[in-house]
C-alpha cells in the first residue's frame, strides 16, 4: 500500500544513519551530565536537547526552514545572542572586588596564555599533519582557554562556524570540569605555605567608582582595541545599567527574563551545530583535547603570575587566586576558596578570587577582539 510505504520511508528507523544514532547517544550523555551531575546545566541542557532535535532523521529541524536553523541564523550567525548574553552577564557582575584590588587584573591577563598556547598547539598539530586547522580555526579553538561560553561562541561564529558545535561543547564541558581540572594543577605549582597566605581585607568601593569603571573600560577599548568593542561594549552596558541606579527595571529584566530567553535560544542554536556529519569528525576530538590543554595552561599561568607578582610587592597575594583568572565565573573562584580552606580553614579567598575571576572575562574578551582583528573575522 502506497501510504504505508510512505509512512515507513518517513520513519526514523528507515532513515537513521549510524552517525545520527551516535549523536543522539552523545546528546543524551550531555543531558545526563547536565541533569545528574549539574555540569553547566543552563547551557548543556539546552545544547544537549538541541543536539537531539538536530539528529532526528528527516525532521530537518536544524536545516533549511527548520526552527533551530532559523534560530542559528538570526541569533548566532549575526552574533546577537552571545552579545546579549554578555550584556546580561554585565548586569550580573559586581566589579567591587576588582576595584578594591585592581592589580588582580594582571592575573586575568596571565591566564589568557592558555588561549595563545592552544592556538599554537592547534597550528602545531596541523604542521605535524595530524589535524588540519587554518589560522582562523586555530584562533577559535584557542578561545576555549578563555573559559567563557559566550565569548567562545561569538568568536567561533565569526572565525570558524563549522567548528562551533565542538567548540561550544568543549568550552562548557571544561567550565563544568573546573573543580576537577584545576585543583591538582594548583597544588602542584604552590607550596603549602603559599596556599596559607592570608590576604588583606578588601576596602569598600564607592558607587561612583562602580559607575565610572565600565565607562572607563569602554573608552580604553575604544581608543586602543576597537575590535573588542562589541563584546566589551555590551558587557559594560549591562554593568552600567546595573550600577547607575536609575534604570533598575531595565537591569532587572536584563539579568532575568532577557538572559533566560536568550540562553534557551542560544543553546538550541548551538545544538543545531551538533549534526552528525559536522560533529563526528577527527577535528572534534582534536578540539576536545586542545581545550583541555588550554584550561590547564591557563590555570597554571594564572598561578605562576601570582607568584611572580609576589616577588615585587609587599602586600602578599595568595597564588591560588591566580587560577581564578581563567574566568569560568563564579566556579573558578569557588574552587580557589575550597583549595584555600584545605590549607588554612580560616582563610576565605572567595572575594579575593572574584577580582581575577571577572578580570579573566575582560582578558579573554580582549584576546577575542585581537584574534578577530588579526585573523580577519
Amino acid at each position, binding site marked *: 500500500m502506497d501510504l504505508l510505504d510512505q509512512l515507513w520511508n518517513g520513519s526514523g528507523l528507515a532513515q537513521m544513519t549510524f552517525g545520527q544514532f551516535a549523536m543522539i547517544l552523545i546528546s543524551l550523555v550531555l543531558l545526563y551530565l547536565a541533569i545528574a551531575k549539574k555540569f553547566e546545566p543552563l547551557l548543556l541542557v539546552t545544547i544537549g536537547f538541541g543536539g537531539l532535535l538536530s539528529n532526528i532523521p528527516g525532521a530537518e529541524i536544524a536545516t533549511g526552514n527548520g526552527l533551530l536553523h532559523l534560530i542559528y541564523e538570526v541569533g548566532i550567525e549575526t552574533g546577537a545572542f552571545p552579545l546579549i548574553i554578555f550584556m546580561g552577564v554585565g548586569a550580573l557582575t559586581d566589579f567591587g572586588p576588582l576595584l578594591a584590588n585592581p592589580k588582580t587584573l594582571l592575573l586575568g591577563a596571565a591566564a589568557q596564555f592558555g588561549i595563545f598556547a592552544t592556538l599554537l598547539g592547534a597550528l602545531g598539530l596541523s604542521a605535524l599533519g595530524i589535524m588540519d586547522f587554518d589560522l582562523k580555526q586555530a584562533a577559535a579553538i584557542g578561545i576555549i582557554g578563555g573559559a567563557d561560553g559566550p565569548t567562545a561562541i561569538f568568536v567561533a561564529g565569526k572565525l570558524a562556524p563549522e567548528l562551533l558545535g565542538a567548540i561550544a561543547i568543549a568550552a562548557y564541558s571544561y567550565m563544568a570540569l573546573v573543580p576537577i581540572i584545576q585543583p591538582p594543577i594548583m597544588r602542584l605549582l604552590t607550596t603549602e605555605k603559599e596556599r596559607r597566605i592570608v590576604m588583606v581585607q578588601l576596602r569598600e*568601593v564607592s558607587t561612583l567608582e562602580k559607575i565610572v569603571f565600565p565607562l572607563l573600560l569602554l573608552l580604553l577599548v575604544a581608543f586602543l582595541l576597537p575590535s573588542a568593542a562589541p563584546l566589551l561594549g555590551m558587557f559594560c552596558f549591562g554593568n552600567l545599567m546595573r550600577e547607575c541606579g536609575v534604570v533598575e527595571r531595565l537591569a532587572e529584566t536584563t539579568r532575568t527574563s532577557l538572559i533566560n530567553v536568550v540562553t534557551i535560544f542560544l543553546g538550541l542554536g548551538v545544538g543545531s551545530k551538533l549534526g552528525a556529519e559536522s560533529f563526528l569528525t577527527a577535528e572534534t576530538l582534536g578540539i576536545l583535547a586542545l581545550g583541555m590543554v588550554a584550561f590547564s595552561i591557563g590555570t597554571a599561568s594564572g598561578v605562576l603570575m601570582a607568584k611572580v607578582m609576589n616577588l615585587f610587592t609587599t602586600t602578599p597575594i595568595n597564588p591560588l587566586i591566580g587560577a581564578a583568572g581563567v574566568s569560568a565565573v563564579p566556579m573558578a573562584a569557588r574552587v580557589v576558596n575550597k583549595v584555600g580552606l584545605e590549607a588554612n580553614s580560616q582563610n576565605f579567598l572567595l572575594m579575593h578570587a572574584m577580582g581575577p575571576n571577572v578580570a579573566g572575562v575582560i582578558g579573554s574578551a580582549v584576546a577575542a577582539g*585581537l584574534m578577530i582583528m588579526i585573523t580577519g573575522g
Partner: protein
Amino acid sequence: MNGLLESGIELMMIGMGTVFAFLALLVVVTQTMSWAVLKFGLASNALALEPKEVGAAGQHAYSADHVAAIAVALDTHLRSKSQ
C-alpha cells in the same frame, strides 16, 4: 606549514603582549580613577549616596523572607501563649 606556525608564534607574542599591556594600563587608569574619586571626596557625594531606585525592582528593606520569618515567629509565639 612552517609559515602557519610562524604566524602562530607571532600572534601569540603580539597577543599576550597586547592583553598584558591593555590590562596593565587598565590597572593604572583604574587606580587613578579611584584615587581621584577618593581625593575629591566624590565617594560620598550626592550621586554616590543617593539610594538606588529600589521600588521598581521590588526590593524592600524587609525582604519577603524576612517578613515571613517575623510572621512565622509571631505566629508561633502567639500560639504558644494561647495554650
